């Protein structure tokens, strides 16, 4: 029989005395850990909060739409403000403008056009049209050498 110090050592550091380290009783110690992922149990909480914020008859009220309209107005003001800055963004100017435009686009389509609340088939149809349009757009620009224009070299 092990002496008291050895028993205490096993109790503190080993799992059942089988020389495996005693792991803390966390989600990851379970064979099928719940909320496994980089953000742990924050994921479902944030998802639930976003869902409550953007969906449901309790929020799809005139006040909700007015807040969405105000956000759109603020994004437009930001766009114009960034535009007035002299080289404030440099090479990041175009990506910043495109991100802001994309945010406004998504907000209008999701909330004003109700795709957030409607059946996902409608989102799929519209996204298909949009993706094909962007593809045509990029192919068009590529074949005209507008995406990576060749440098101007004297003959």
């Amino acid at each position, binding site marked *: 029989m092990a002496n008291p110090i050895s028993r205490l050592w096993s109790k503190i550091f080993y799992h059942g005395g089988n020389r495996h380290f005693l792991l803390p009783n966390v989600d990851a110690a379970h064979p099928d850990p719940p909320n496994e992922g980089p953000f742990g149990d924050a994921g479902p909480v944030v998802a639930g909060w976003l869902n409550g914020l953007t969906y*449901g*008859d309790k929020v*799809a*009220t*005139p006040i909700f*739409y*007015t807040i*969405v*309209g105000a956000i*759109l*107005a603020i994004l*437009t003001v930001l*766009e*114009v403000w960034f*535009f007035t800055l002299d080289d404030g963004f440099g090479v990041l*100017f*175009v990506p910043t*403008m*495109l991100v*802001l*435009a994309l945010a*406004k*686009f998504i907000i*209008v*389509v999701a*909330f*004003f*056009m*109700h795709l957030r*609340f*409607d*059946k996902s*088939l*409608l989102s799929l*149809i*519209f996204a*298909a*049209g*949009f993706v*094909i*349009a*962007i593809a*045509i*757009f990029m192919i*068009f*620009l590529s074949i*005209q050498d*507008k995406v990576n224009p060749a440098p*101007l070299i*004297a*003959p």
Partner: protein
Amino acid sequence: MIELTDDRTHEGLREAKLAQAAVAQEQHGHVADTNTGISNRKLLMWVFLASDCLFFGSFIATYLVYRNESLVGPYPNEILDIPLTSVSTFVLLMSSLAMVLALNYVQKDKLGLARFWLLAVVVLGLGFLGFQVFEFMTFVDEGLTIHQNLFGTTFFILTGFHGLHVFVGVLWLLGMFFAHSRGALTSRSAEDLEMAGLYWHFVDIVWIVIFTVIYLIGYSDGEGVKTIEHAATLIGG
């Protein structure tokens, strides 16, 4: 595992679908009696809007292909009026807000408020068209016509077709407003207004792209490069 008979499976699915439909109906109005649960008109409208993406996508791509290719002026950096266009963009965005409020009030049978917001959409839409007509007339006065250069051609085609879409939307909404005045528009026929609303919001999102790509990003566009010597002149060499 318990095997369900066909009847039980079918009954369970039917009950689940009915429960889902009841929730959706309570939250967002009528649920159509079709395979998809979406009314055919609404489905058709979304297919049309998806195809309209291709229509405007082609025009925007064409504009970008001919960016900085104009050999004679006026060029974008000489003529585009960003403050004026920012105001007109704001007007169109707010018309979208008015549109969604009009639909919301129609669905709730608050017809007086619905009528007010519907009229607001028409007024704001006409305001946007007024800005665009003023802008076009100013450009023509300053020498930019559809024949003048590649910028003029691609700009007028793109913004002109967008303006035409807005004009059609205003006519459609005016029709809805007068129908509303005669009592033809209630929560039972809210889908009629929803169709007009979808079209109107689409016009708005197209303008969001045009404003960013053509006005804000394209503002710095100038003269096209004619020769190597000309390029050297342009970059100050």
